[in-house]
């Protein structure tokens, strides 16, 4: 396969992870596209799965407290990675801090089946290294403009799943969902696309189902 992340190509890294280790799924996408909300929704929807989260976003005890109060996830199951102002470096070029975080969670929870790694908000070229995740989801949102899928970039074109988020906002921002969906399917050569609104479906059933199929 080509290792050039700018080449749109079906991901052939779908083999099962090494025996006994948790499946690692990356969630990337631009700032404000709804990555954290999607991760929270997945935690709720996959409450029966032994899972943990690594966040590369700016993260404080306040965030941990929010998640705890919301009953989404025990803070002990969240590892925050500090990225030295370079979120894309931490998920792609130098993944050691994230690998250490995954290791810490695996040591703490030996039965772990799934680790969701949320990237810091970045641009359309930021993808996860295959050395860090087994599968990746790229999240864009309707409010970011309906030209985003057409622009492409490695995130949109090569992610294993593209999520077009906040579809409930389409009428408000004048975005054409038909255009977005059509462009997305065209640039992705058959890779799956999900259009969703966490307002309408707070537990992200389509994405949660896709994740379950990867376990």
């Amino acid at each position, binding site marked *: 396969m080509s290792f050039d992340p700018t080449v749109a190509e079906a991901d052939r890294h779908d083999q099962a992870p090494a025996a006994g280790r948790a499946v690692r799924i990356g969630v990337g996408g631009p700032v404000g596209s709804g990555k954290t909300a999607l991760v929270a929704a997945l935690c709720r929807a996959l409450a029966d799965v032994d899972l943990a989260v690594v966040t590369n976003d700016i993260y*404080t005890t306040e965030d941990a407290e929010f998640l705890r109060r919301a009953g989404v996830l025990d803070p002990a199951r969240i590892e925050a990675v500090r990225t030295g*102002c370079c979120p894309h470096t931490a998920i792609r070029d130098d993944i*050691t801090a994230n690998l250490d975080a995954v290791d810490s969670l695996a040591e703490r929870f030996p039965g772990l089946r799934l680790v969701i790694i949320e990237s810091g908000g970045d641009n359309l070229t930021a993808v996860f290294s295959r050395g860090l995740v087994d599968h990746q989801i790229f999240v864009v949102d309707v409010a970011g403009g309906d030209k985003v899928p057409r622009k492409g970039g490695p995130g949109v074109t090569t992610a294993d799943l593209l999520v077009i988020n906040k579809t409930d906002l389409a009428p408000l921002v004048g975005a054409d969902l038909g255009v977005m969906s059509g462009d997305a399917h065209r640039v992705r050569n058959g890779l799956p696309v999900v259009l969703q609104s966490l307002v309408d479906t707070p537990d992200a059933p389509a994405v949660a189902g896709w994740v379950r199929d990867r376990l």
Partner: protein
Amino acid sequence: MSVLAMLLADSRFPGGGHVHSGGLEEAAARGLLRAEADLPPFLTARLRTAGLLAAVFAAASAHAAGSPRGDGVWDVLDAELDARTPSAAARYASRVQGKAFARAVGVMVVPSVDGDCGSTLRAVLAATPRPHHAIVLGVAAGSVAGAARVAAYLAVSGPASAAVRLLGLDPLWVNGVVAGMVDEVEAVAGEAVRWAGCAPAELPAPSSPGLDLLAEEHERHHREEVRLFVS
């Protein structure tokens, strides 16, 4: 300078270095380091204290890796470096970086002085599962001089790069500052090389009270407010 040492000193080497600012983030967050003129004195003093310590232990570790040795040497070097690092936050940062570095080195096939960096690295990790950064660097660098140079250079280049990212300083100017320190970096590396074969207990122990206090507060602040670097 060997190509191997250049690889280890490259900021693109995936050894976890980009998330460490060497105290610069805490200084910047407190407004103690704001402008371009503040950077050279910080880098010079850091080189002569923490940089010298790192270079000395990297050189000693490279020397140990290339010598017939007893099993206890990695334990001894680890304990001696601990004793020279009174700040718990600084020890933590060094070990986080050491583990990350060991991961990156562990997957490389490195022709080192004993012909097999892998077995030496395994011995280090068996003695100290989270080794200090300087000690892993010494094992990987393949030569005493290379280890000392890379450690001294990283003590400066890491915070310099953090200054570009945190303060938006002109990267060309910052690069010029680092280039202007070449002689000082060489001098520190040279001093480290001279100590490499000495008994670990006798190795230099330069202190850096200011860096220690910045490191401690950085770690404490991270729990309440935003800090983007590990150290």
